[in-house]
């Protein structure tokens, strides 16, 4: 009964939403808006080949700051949700619940790990040239760490280092933004104050590349932190602190 009600409710929703969406057909160039400006300015003024990157980091860089914050927030919130009062004891000897992976996996992980990290680094360094960027690169790096975390029970991410990377990467994003207030022409937050360089050059795009590197570090560190938090949580069962 409830099933029917909900399906019909969702059906009504679907009808209205679909009718709104199909009003302009798929794939038609209908929008006369900001996108043309972005498509023009990105290669010309910013010298950034990847327009998505230039939007994400420059035109709408403020969103990205928010986005990085969301990840930071998620990792902090995760910490605050899963913290333990006497964490000092367990921190010395944290137990990961994962069973030891097979030797094959371990060996493979060891080989793949540096390449993954390198790939991630490549992705975010070339964020303004090719598809990908800070988020993707950071996520890839985190995947590499994930591989290590699940292969080796004794592989521990140094929390201090993570904290530093997180803090410094986030800080440099904001500081670069604030530097724009001082050094850039229009004195705006996140405004580019470095020479733009040449299109399709690695050192093009001014602060975009730098910000994306910061984002990459930040995202990588955050996600690794999230995974580490989730992986070191205690084994299943009732938590005495909760009751």
């Amino acid at each position: 009964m409830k099933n029917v009600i909900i399906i019909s409710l969702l059906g009504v929703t679907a009808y209205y939403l679909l009718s709104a969406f199909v009003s302009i057909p798929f794939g038609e160039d209908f929008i006369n808006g900001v996108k043309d400006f972005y498509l023009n300015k990105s290669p010309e003024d910013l010298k950034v080949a990847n327009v998505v990157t230039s939007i994400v980091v420059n035109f709408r860089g403020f969103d990205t700051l928010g986005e990085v914050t969301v990840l930071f927030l998620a990792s902090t919130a995760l910490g605050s949700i899963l913290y333990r009062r006497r964490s000092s004891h367990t921190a010395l000897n944290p137990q990961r619940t994962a069973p030891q992976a097979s030797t094959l996996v371990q060996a493979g992980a060891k080989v793949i790990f540096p390449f993954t990290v390198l790939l991630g680094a490549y992705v975010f360094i070339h964020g303004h040239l090719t598809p990908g960027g800070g988020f993707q690169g950071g996520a890839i790096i985190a995947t590499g760490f994930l591989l290590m975390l699940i292969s080796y029970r004794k592989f521990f991410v140094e929390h201090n280092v993570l904290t530093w990377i997180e803090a410094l990467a986030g800080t440099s994003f904001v500081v670069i933004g604030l530097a724009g207030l001082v050094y850039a022409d229009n004195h705006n937050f996140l405004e580019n104050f470095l020479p733009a360089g040449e299109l399709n050059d690695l050192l093009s795009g001014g602060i975009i590349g730098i910000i994306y590197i910061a984002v990459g570090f930040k995202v990588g560190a955050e996600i690794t932190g999230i995974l580490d938090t989730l992986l070191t949580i205690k084994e299943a069962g009732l938590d005495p602190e909760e009751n």
Partner: protein
Amino acid sequence: MQAFLTYSIYGTALFLMLLGLYAVLMKKNLIKIVIGLSVADSGLHLLFVAVGYINGGTAPIFSPAVAGTGTVMTDPVPQALVLTAIVIGFGVTAVALALVVRLYRKHNTTNIDEIKNLKW
């Protein structure tokens, strides 16, 4: 063809979204609910990208091959937005799962019907 694609892509995206919502509304398992949220997010992301697509457009990257040729490019704005949305969705999922773990430890169940200490 155009109309068919319009309906099929938008329809699938919305369908995926509403399927996720269905799981949120009907499934009793907390993890299933979170899966539902994530499926709904996926549908939404597809919708975003589909809206940004332009017939015959290339990816909005001025690689040396494309630069200066004046090719049509897809709309980069929804792509940029969906990047943000994906990351935000990931963050929310992570928090939700952490909460599920907390709830499981307190109530020893993942059935949402049994977790209602707070009511009225």
